[in-house]
């Protein structure tokens, strides 16, 4: 297919433009609920990028955790604490400068990293069309369990690696569990802070 538009590129540009535009809108607007709304659109466009890349599982995760999480943030962070009907935030000039410095530093670092790592170089169009994406969550699960499928193939026969795998010391299951416990503690703490304080009857 030489003629016409290459659709993955078209949709990549579309989703990327939507994500960036609403990301900027989040920064510019001063209305908190509008901010949350733009943030949700930006995150949903990012989920679209994941779907485009064939990472259906990550895309669905993005929708469930980030988009749904923003929703919860909006409800419990804004609506339950609001003192006035429609909240607006004012940003001072100094804050703009600080934010631009921090954001610009991060942006330049990311751009530099994205174009300097060989493995992340964009494929040519012929290469991209040759790659058949077969989306599956198996690799994620294997990675969590300590057998990242893309590495193991290269290092097969190395008995030290095999032993480490057998012992379950590589992979991300332990960090994953630590994060899970951490979140549980946060939940318990939130419940503790939010509970009704019972006054002891004198």
């Amino acid at each position, binding site marked *: *297919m030489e003629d016409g538009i290459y659709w993955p590129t078209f949709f990549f540009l579309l989703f990327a433009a939507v994500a960036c535009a609403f990301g900027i809108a989040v920064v510019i607007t001063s209305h908190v609920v509008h901010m949350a709304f733009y943030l949700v659109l930006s995150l949903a466009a990012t989920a679209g990028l994941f779907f485009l890349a064939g990472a259906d599982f990550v895309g669905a995760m993005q929708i469930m955790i980030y988009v*749904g999480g923003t929703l919860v943030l909006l409800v419990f962070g804004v*609506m339950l604490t609001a003192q006035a009907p429609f909240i607006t935030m004012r940003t001072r000039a100094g804050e703009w400068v600080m934010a631009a410095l921090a954001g610009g530093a991060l942006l330049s670092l990311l751009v530099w990293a994205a174009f300097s790592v060989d493995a992340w170089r964009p494929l040519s169009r012929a290469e991209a069309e040759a790659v058949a994406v077969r*989306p*599956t969550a198996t690799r994620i699960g294997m990675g969590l*369990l300590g*057998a990242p499928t893309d590495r193991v193939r290269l290092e097969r026969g190395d008995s030290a690696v095999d032993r480490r795998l*057998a012992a379950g010391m590589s992979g991300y299951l332990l960090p994953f569990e630590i994060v899970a416990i951490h979140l549980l503690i946060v939940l318990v703490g939130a419940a503790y802070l939010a509970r009704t304080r019972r006054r002891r009857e004198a």
Partner: protein
Amino acid sequence: MAEFINASILNVVLGWFGGAVSADHWVGYAMAALIHATLLLLLIANAALLFIWMERKISGRIQDRLGPTRVGGKFGWLQTLADGLKLLTKEDLMPGGADRLLFRIAPYISFCASFAAFLAIPFSVNGVAWVGQHLNVATFFILAVLGLEVFGVILGGYGSASKWSLFGAMREAAQVISYEVPLGLCAIVPVMIAGTMDLVAIGNMQQGWFTNWFVLHDPFVFLTFFVFLTCATASVNRAPFDLAEAESELVAGFLTEYSGLRWSFFFMAEYGSMLAVSILAAILFLGGWNGPLPVTDWLGLNSANGSVAGYLGSLAGCLNTLAKGVLGVMMMMWARWTLPRLRIDQVITTCWKYCTPIVCFTFVGTTAWMLFLPNGLGVLPGPARPYASVREAGASAGPQPRPGSEVVARRPVPSGALGAPASSPDPFSLSADAE
């Protein structure tokens, strides 16, 4: 549907251009996208028309009335159309203090979330899958997207600048966010039996007699099915869980300030979600496109006997799915007009103190059942379960109850087996013919 449209219809349509357009051409992609989207939109719109009429008739009969009898003949078939015309001509009002952007956009967000769920729902699989987009994590995707419907409700309730709307939206948020937990846990049980989140594969594993449906897999799944129905009713905000629009206390909840077309978009979204969760329940528990008895197999309606026979078989499967979905919606209506509305504390109690523990129990029970009785008790008649044979094939390597056991190395990894995963043959041989 994607494969079907690309394979059959598109070739015919492209033939009209005299072969000037190849199958890879952008016209082909655009037309395929357009056809998919239009079919699904028509499905939701017509389902809403049918369901509103059904709601009127069923509520009438339950309350010992006749319901609509005049518009469009004896049974009032066209009542919904008349309602729609009335809504179109209503003035589109907006409260003076409302947040203009959020108020205007909220109904479309709800509708889009409801619509997006249909993208991943397979309606029939018979050689080719009639599905907008065949995702291998379809179950998860649908649950994630349906959860977004509440976003439109919250924005609408907040943007209305009315206390009734805000209260309704807050109630709905608390309710939907709570009920996503047991709903997701319920969906895990059939996913665990099937070993995949791919709805096409899950439905295909329930081929054969109705005894192969997952709801009859074991007593725990049977219980899970009813918990799923309860949570699904709550998550689409239907009575007895319709606190967000409790007219006796909150006027109409988040809908209070809406009128005309925007109001009807909220209702299209609600009826669309009802159909989506009903079809999801049908595929996860009730065999999906497989009828109670494999009549289409007996008649030889598959693509091996020509494309017409294959098409008829797919059509029969699609009708099966839709019939089960409509039956599910009918049950929700029946519950709505029978049970009184719950209080908010009762709603949350039902979720956290009953549904969640019950489904945790059935989850553990199903796990134990699959470990100790992988072939069932053998008391149900009918042909062997397709998934049981898959499991036995995998069991030769050890007592691994999952069909995907070759792929997921669950215990200390044998060093020789590590290269195998990506290249091992797909254990879901049933889904292979669907791709």
